[in-house]
């Protein structure tokens, strides 16, 4: 809506999907959580159906904008717009969500998050496709996730936001890590950081090392809100907190 009002977007037609209650749901069954594209942030936050391992989705949704925004904004809207400093794309990317898209001829396809988010304001959704829902696979292992952001004022758009999803084996060894970042140029993976955590116990030193690797793989910048170096510091401190929280949550399920 900001883009429409500021005339960046000049749609010839606007089609309102809010009457499609079929797209508004949160459903967990058969090892899969599915969230409808028209599900509002407030519905995600208040849903009892989101399992603990996917709680990063709630972390992200609960602090988008303000409560008026959360009464209106939808998961699908956020994912398809894919703003450079948006929270839910980072969470969905960390949780390895899969987007279910439908074409005008009724055919559907599924696109993994890694292939869906292409860059700021760019997704794999084709011009006439509609996002129907997002699937999240549930695991049997000890799994935990978290998301946190920092902005200048409380709950501002993230200068840096980090999401993490970790799985731990029976030996308490991290065997799966997805760490994502937002605020610089949209949701992106921190592959080096992920690789360095796998096959470790993800203790504080190891997490710190992982975030240093993440910094070495990313370029930041200076603006009036934060310097280049400060952004790196945020990546390190928020990353540490988020990953430790995800780990704690994973073990609380044991």
């Amino acid at each position, binding site marked *: 809506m900001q883009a429409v009002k500021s005339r960046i977007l000049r749609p010839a037609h606007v089609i309102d999907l809010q009457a499609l209650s079929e797209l508004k749901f949160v459903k967990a069954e058969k090892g899969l959580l599915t969230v409808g594209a028209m599900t509002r942030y407030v519905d995600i936050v208040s849903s009892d159906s989101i399992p603990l391992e996917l709680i990063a989705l709630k972390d992200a949704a609960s602090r988008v904008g303000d409560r008026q925004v959360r009464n209106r904004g939808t998961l699908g809207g956020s994912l398809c717009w894919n703003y450079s400093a948006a929270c839910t794309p980072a969470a969905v990317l960390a949780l390895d969500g899969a987007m279910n898209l439908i074409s005008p001829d009724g055919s559907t396809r599924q696109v993994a998050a890694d292939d869906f988010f292409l860059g700021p304001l760019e997704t794999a959704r084709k011009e006439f496709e509609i996002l129907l829902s997002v699937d999240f696979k549930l695991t049997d292992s000890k799994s935990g996730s978290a998301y946190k952001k920092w902005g200048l*004022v409380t709950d501002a758009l993230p200068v840096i936001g980090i999401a993490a999803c970790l799985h731990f084996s029976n030996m308490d060894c991290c065997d799966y890590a997805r760490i994502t970042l937002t605020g610089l140029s949209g949701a992106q993976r921190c592959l080096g950081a992920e690789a360095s955590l796998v096959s470790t116990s993800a203790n504080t030193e190891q997490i710190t090392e992982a975030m240093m690797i993440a910094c070495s793989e990313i370029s930041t910048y200076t603006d009036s809100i934060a310097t280049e170096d400060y952004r790196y510091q945020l990546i390190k*401190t928020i990353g540490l907190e988020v990953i430790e929280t995800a780990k704690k949550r994973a073990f609380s399920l044991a």
Partner: protein
Amino acid sequence: MSQRKNDDWMGTPLPRKEDRRLLTGKGKYVSDIVIPGALHAVFVRSEYAHAKILSIDTSEAEELAGVERIYTGDQIKHLIKSMPQPIVQPALPAHYPTFWPLAVDKVTFHGEPVALVIARDKYVAEDAAELVFVDYEELEPVLDPEEALKPESAIIHEKDGTNEIFSMTFTGGDTEASQAKNAAEVEKIFQNAPIVVKDRFKTHRTGVTPMEPRAILCDWDDSDGLLAYITTQRPHIDRLALSDILDISAEKVQVIAPRDQGGGFGVKAPFYRENIIIAHAARDLKQPVRWVESRYESLMNVGQERDQINDMEIAADLEGNMLALRNFGLADNGVGTTGVYWGFVMPFLGAIELPNGYKWPKADIRLKVATTNKACLTPSRAFGHFPTRFAIERCIDMVAHKIGMEPSAFRRKNLVADLPYTSITNEYFDSGDFLKVWDTLMEKANLPDFRVQQKNALSEGKYIGIGFGCGVELSGVASELFVPMENQPGYGAATVRLDPRGKVQVFGGDAPGGQGHETTTAQVVASEFGISPEDVIITTGNTGSTPFGSGSVGARMGSYFISAVAEACRELKTKIAKFLAHDLQLEASVEHFEFKNGEVVYLGDDSQRSSFMSIVERIIMFPINMPEGETGGLDATTFFEAAKPMICFNADCCVVEVSLETGDFKILKWITAEDVGNVINPLIVNGQMHGAIVQGISNTVFEEFVYDEQGQQLTADFEHYKMANAADVPNIDLNYATTPCPHTPLGTRGIGEGRPSSVPGALTNAVCDALKPFEIEITTLPLRPDAIWQKIQDATQ
């Protein structure tokens, strides 16, 4: 009805008369007023900071259905007088730029009005504005005030031959010789002083944007002339200015500032270019014309203040006596093309107030104000002295550290103790007990206890700090300052009019924006006459019905206006008493009567009494058998001017915790002590203090107007110009240490205007105190986590 104290409405926390309509959506702000047939105006604004206008093509825009007219600078420069005009020009020597409401020949800041589109509705006007094509030839923008004053700099207002719009020396007398002598004496003190601190203190561009942006609705009638509803703090000034500039005979100009305005804070005090052209358009088109500013325009154009560098030095001795103060201030004025203040009047006053409430034996205080290609500075609460307070309160802490003294003790030792007092810049402090305020604060702050907590926290790896600040603030603006500064009078003026039913109407020319004047005034009138505040109705801001008022600026309410109200009431009470004594055949005058509970009672024999309503009715409706020499009627207009300029004093203490990892900090406590004089409505005074302190915090930490290297303004929406929300700011512990003002009839003081000024110093001092182990001194605002973190890194490397 609230519980009254002492049978008197003074000091009563009466819920406000304004509230019912505002709570039920019945407030009427300028943008709510409807005149059928009103056309809507949208400005086309400059995209460049500095550029020649080669041509403006309005042909496509004019074709759009619903477009009435499009104005450009080229046309109107022959139709409207240029500024400056005497009515909105201070009596201060400066290079006042020539300008019209729309840019002529060139644009000088990003956002300057270039063309005006008038259309049937706002959507069409916005569409048309997009179709106005301006051909620019870019010029090198001048964006740094120090660079602007260098000889090689491009000159923005060519006819002036300089970018120095104003400069002044505030100490050492009026002649160059005396100033040079003073400077030499000050230099000698600095050379011999055991303790000297010198540093550069920078305050960023920020200010207090009200929630309601500007708006104007003009109606024109060939017989009656111009009626303008304006979001303004100063309708009487606006009226004279519109009359002079548009050559409309003054009796045919009426300005109304509606009783509901969404905040002013100084931003609605200047006389703006947009108002001139909108009024002209209404006259030209003979149809009502309406302009409602968007937030984007507002952040582009107004609310920018404070932008200043202060190169400050303080000399002190080892016992903690302040010896001398030297300051070279440089303000970044923007283009200066705004009437009344021209941007520089703020730093002018800020330099006068620089010495704050301390006894300076000697000082050398100078100011230069530079023109740059940015929006002109507009007043913001803590008018002019937010940056100078930041500088001096920080510098004082740095001196205290060097001496090895507690900053709060260093302050107390040097606070002015005996009032009245004339400061080193000839600012007059009429009354107050600064030490009482300070000691009240210190008792609440419990510094010894805090130092213990701080030590314990440090051993746990936590960094907490305490910071202090104080401020001498204007309580109204006396004519002796107002006339030279703005060619305007300082007096408060009120008409008090009784009606035959014992109700009271009060008329005041100043235009409030949320300060609760209706309620405060009603309480005072009710106290004076012994009636209920419900029986009192106030009309403000209508030039057709109110006496002249210079505006709701500089805390004029509690100082000047309410004093005029009280005196007018007393004049009428004298007359009422005279009539009643005459009717009851008593040898008595006003001091022998009590006005209470809706009655007027003779103190010598309380069987001799009348209801307030009947004696008032008698005087207005039945003017026969009257006391000798008297006439009927009960109407008084009083002009109140205090004997001397007045002040009030406040002090702040805040406690913060700083995170070493992120430089982020949390305000744990905010404690104040204030001398607000006698309080009429404590709820309203509390609200003023809270609001001012939070504005100060928000300005210090979050808000910043940013221009890039091309002079593009990057912070023209609330996504980028960050204002504090409710989760960002603390609760505030207010403490009053009042002394009645001896110069006002009610002992009240004007409060709230300068209140934010002590905040940046106090807050930054607290952060530096927390980081004392690293010996970090912060001298640049905004106070941001990234900058704090960087300082910690630099200190620990």
